[in-house]
């Protein structure tokens, strides 16, 4: 477990978000320390994705605050989030299908020549370098990402986070679209990122992945936080109980 003396890397305090009359996130507090993986669990519609999109800048909070390294952070859009080294890997694989891997990796942060033109050759070289490290089977550098498999596309998305030195990584069901082998690859990657001191929020449905990858798990139900537990102090049934019944286990 990580060092708890320093302030948490991220603390989302008393966050509330409403859409119309529906309270999607209701007064939720979660935190994340460096080198830690915190699982966010709950049914579909429990509010996990909404909560985390406040951190990535895609949604605005109605109430509450976000603290990064103990200091209040204003995150109004995805650009602000990037400035805090928050990178997000979305469930829907937020890639532009018609562009190649390099264009996607550098989207919004293109390398440019002194003349101000995008430097495609340089970006492709950087992409080849980082993909060689993450997924050495990756060869399709010239094709639009539409032509790639789910795992290859996911590795592009992860490469984007790694390349830009994320400190805080948000992964929204990173293995949902993947086969077993590719899931294993992502799991290895998460462990490696963790060892580099990156804090990871992992939204995950597969309870086995949660038990294997996460240090702590925060469970949400109907927009409210049920509780946060240390994964190695509970069983998977305890966590399922939290998700389904919304009750906190005795041990936690």
């Amino acid at each position: 477990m990580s060092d708890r003396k320093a302030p948490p890397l991220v603390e989302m305090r008393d966050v509330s978000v409403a859409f119309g009359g529906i309270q999607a996130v209701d007064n939720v507090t979660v935190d994340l320390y460096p080198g830690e993986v915190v699982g966010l669990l709950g049914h579909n519609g429990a509010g996990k994705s909404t909560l985390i999109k406040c951190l990535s800048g895609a949604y605005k909070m109605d109430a509450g605050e976000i603290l990064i390294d103990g200091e209040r952070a204003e995150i109004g859009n995805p650009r602000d989030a990037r400035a805090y080294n928050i990178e997000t890997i979305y469930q829907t694989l937020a890639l532009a299908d018609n562009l190649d891997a390099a264009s996607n990796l550098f989207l919004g942060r293109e390398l440019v020549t002194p003349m101000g033109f995008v430097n495609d050759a340089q970006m492709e070289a950087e992409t080849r370098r980082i993909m060689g490290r993450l997924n050495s089977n990756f060869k399709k550098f010239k094709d639009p990402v539409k032509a790639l498999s789910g795992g290859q596309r996911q590795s592009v998305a992860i490469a984007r986070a790694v390349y830009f030195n994320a400190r805080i990584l948000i992964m929204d069901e990173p293995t949902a679209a993947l086969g077993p082998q590719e899931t294993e690859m992502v799991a290895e990657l998460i462990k490696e990122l963790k060892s580099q001191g990156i804090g990871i929020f992992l939204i995950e449905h597969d309870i086995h992945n949660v038990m294997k990858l996460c240090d702590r798990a925060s469970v949400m139900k109907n927009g409210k936080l049920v509780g946060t537990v240390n994964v190695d102090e509970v069983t998977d049934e305890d966590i399922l109980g939290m998700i389904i019944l919304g009750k906190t286990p005795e041990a936690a």
Partner: protein
Amino acid sequence: MTEASASGTSTGRKNIFKTLEFDTRLLGMVGAFVVVCLIFNVLTDGRFLTSRNVFNLTIQTVSVAIMATGMVFVIVTRHIDLSVGSLLATCSAMMAITQTQFLPSLGFDYSNPMIAVLAIVVGLVTGALIGAFHGWLIGYLTIPAFIVTLGGLLVWRNVAWYLTTGQTIGPLNDTFQTLGGIGGTMGVTASWIFGAIAVAATCYAIWQARRARVAHEFPVKPVWAEAVLMLICSVLILGFIGMLNAYEVPSRVLERGFEARGEVMPEGYTEGYGVPYSVLLLVAVAVVMTLVAQRTRLGRYIFATGGNPDAAELSGINTRLLTVKVFAIMGTLCALAALVASARLSFHSNDIGTLDELRVIAAAVIGGTALAGGIGTIYGAILGALIMQSLQSGMAMVGVDAPFQNIVVGAVLVLAVLVDIIYRKRTGDA
């Protein structure tokens, strides 16, 4: 970036087109264009491919082709612009009024070349502002582009009418008219020099692209393939310029020119027209727009937004502002097209640019721009405009009745999109 180039990473024997890394779609379009030209050439007993007709075809295409390059950006970002013909009319009216009424009333001499410059500036600003306004309505107020520009189609057509009270305004300034086509050409020598520069620039660009790939140790195609590519480009450029140069100024026009200078024309004196300035303008627009599309962040964001608007937004791209920029570019290009169109006529008429929106959209779509967004090329749109104009004027030369001309053009548009859909399915291409 989005072209369907062969992947070049696999080894082993491949067919010649793959080695050359030709865009097969581009080849298809060029093939269609060549077939159209050849058929009309046979049907007109060789009149279609005379230098005179090629010259006319070229200057007739310029106005629509300029707007089609902008329409590529609009359609790539999943929007549409139905107002370009009307916007062209408003820009044309503004330029005509500026040069014939407003500036002379300020004491400018009617034939002063500065009048043309100022009129063009007024036109470009008008086009850019109206385009940006459309973009603001679409991007920030989230009104669908179809509705905004459908409204614009009515509004700007009738703003032009109101400005000119429906009158034809002309003749336009002499300097202004040189951008219309036959009224302003480079002459033979300058055209060849321009051709040589174009060939050199093309070869340099091909070579530079290769060097960049070599520098990063990426696979490159064999040197002979690059050489063949350079040769083909050079032959096409010089052949086109040779064709325009071969179109000779009628001797009566030349005689008048000599008489005006108080000289006598020597026996057997001839002069070719060469490249019209309007074509030069189109080439400049095409180069700039291609650079924007492929080599700038703006272009990258346009294609990314078209491919996946959510991904673009989440990547920190300001897609609303991007919409404003795209429509401002479209408006500016409408103003340039208005310049060429009114200069070619030598006056502003109330119906200028009518139905151009449909020609422009058709040109972009025939040129391979996908209405679903994310895919399209500038050269494709220009080629599309050329194919449309060839069909239209070819049928007119053959003597096809006007209703049948439009029926054929409409059918060709639908057919072209069908062929494109089948092609994409076959190749699994983006």
